[in-house]
């Protein structure tokens, strides 16, 4: 029986992925605090453990031992569904990311470099990353709090708006590669060159729209502390609050991974073909670089106004992405 191959390996595989992502999230929050602190001439967390390295653990424990409150006017089922969606949908995109040139085998069973090598990989990623906006909207609506609702409305409008340029740039990538399969996209970049060279505009638009899509600064309007308290998470506390936090940070990692795969060649790099483990290292380094850039942007760019945000998306990014697509199509056809 090969139930080990078809069931057990995927189960272990995805469990490891989820665990790594959750740990990654915890340390990402540490890295971000540390980095932003350094950008602004502060020290950042440095009390818990050496260099404050135990800070995420302390935070997690604190969150877990908080009292769980549900506002009495909230729509309870939806109110509880929202954080669940926020965590669970953030990680499932990783099922189609290839991590190395080839897998390895354990006791005669092969472990593939990608959990599910499906031919609609990119479409799947685009679909699951956009489910995150449901979590936001449901959270804001169910809380029955004015701040939450306003935050959710803003977030919802922002996320769906930026999904359009995002989708259009993805189309440009598919157009060049001729496939939605993640492995083939990387293979194409191995055969030719990184897509950031072939599609610089798409890469830039994707990065900007990705920032907005994951509600990162300078597009973090939904959570503007100074006007909306915490936006859609105002009524959430304890682990449920952490859930949204988690979702957002994992979203960030996911976006780093998507950009790395689409535009930076994924696991490709010198020697990665021969030594698959090296590919994984390159992949992680590329993700780290992207995340560093996101944090860098956060530390250096002021938050935009809401009307600027929407105008920028609909009147600038959208036509630009469309133009990029049309030009790409014409170049390829001729």
């Amino acid at each position, binding site marked *: 029986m090969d139930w080990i191959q*078809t069931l057990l390996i995927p*189960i272990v595989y*995805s469990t490891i992925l*989820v665990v790594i992502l959750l740990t990654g999230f915890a340390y990402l929050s540490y890295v971000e605090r540390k980095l932003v602190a350094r950008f602004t001439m502060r020290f950042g967390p440095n009390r818990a453990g050496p260099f404050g390295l135990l800070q995420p653990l302390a935070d997690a424990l604190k969150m*877990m*031992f908080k*009292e*769980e*409150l*549900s506002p*009495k*006017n909230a729509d309870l089922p939806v109110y509880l569904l929202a954080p*669940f969606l926020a*965590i*669970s949908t953030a*990680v*499932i995109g*990783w*099922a*189609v990311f290839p991590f190395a040139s080839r897998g390895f085998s354990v006791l005669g069973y092969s472990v593939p470099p990608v*959990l*599910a090598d499906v*031919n609609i990989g990119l*479409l799947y990623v685009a679909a699951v990353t956009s489910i995150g906006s449901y979590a936001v909207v449901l959270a804001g609506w169910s*809380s*029955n*709090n*004015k*701040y939450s*609702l306003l935050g959710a*409305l803003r977030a*919802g*409008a922002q996320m*769906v*708006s930026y*999904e*359009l340029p995002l*989708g*259009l740039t993805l*189309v440009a990538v*598919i*157009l060049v590669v*001729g*496939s939605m399969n993640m492995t083939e996209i990387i293979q194409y970049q191995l055969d030719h060159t990184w897509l950031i060279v072939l599609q610089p505009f798409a890469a830039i638009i994707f990065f900007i729209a990705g920032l907005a899509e994951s509600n990162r600064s300078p597009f973090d309007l939904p959570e503007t502390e100074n006007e909306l*308290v915490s936006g859609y998470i*105002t*009524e959430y506390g*304890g*682990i449920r609050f952490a859930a949204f936090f988690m979702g957002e940070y994992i979203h960030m990692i996911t976006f780093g991974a998507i950009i790395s795969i689409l535009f930076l060649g994924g696991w490709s790099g010198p020697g990665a073909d021969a030594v698959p483990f090296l590919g994984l290292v390159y992949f992680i380094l590329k993700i780290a670089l992207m995340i560093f850039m996101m944090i860098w942007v956060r530390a250096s760019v002021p938050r935009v106004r*809401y*009307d600027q945000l*929407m105008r920028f998306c*609909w009147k600038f990014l*959208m036509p630009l992405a*469309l133009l990029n697509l*049309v030009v790409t*199509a*014409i170049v*390829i*056809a001729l």
Partner: protein
Amino acid sequence: MPADYLPILIMLVVAALFALVALIVPYYMGPRNPSTSKSDTYESGKLPFGTARRQVPIHYYMVAMLFMMFDIEVIFFYPWAVIFRQLKIFGLIEMGVFVAILLVGYVYIWKKGALEWD
């Protein structure tokens, strides 16, 4: 092949279980001292008034509708992009017509002020 998608389903289940555990376990770890003022709606310390579920600006509906239209049109691009190299000029012209119609709608909403936020 449908079997290719089995790992995705497994990942979905694993992620969902993880989220459930993460959300349910702490419920039994924390203290529980409910009180009416604690579970009241938060409005910056003031007594909350009215419900939050009131009419919202029409702009948000507009954005939702525009998103629906444009997103569906973007989805149409996906299969087209995959086989574009085989369709060649025919595909280019067909999509040119499609994009032209899309642009008419885009110019229309722009000029009608649906994209303004004031």
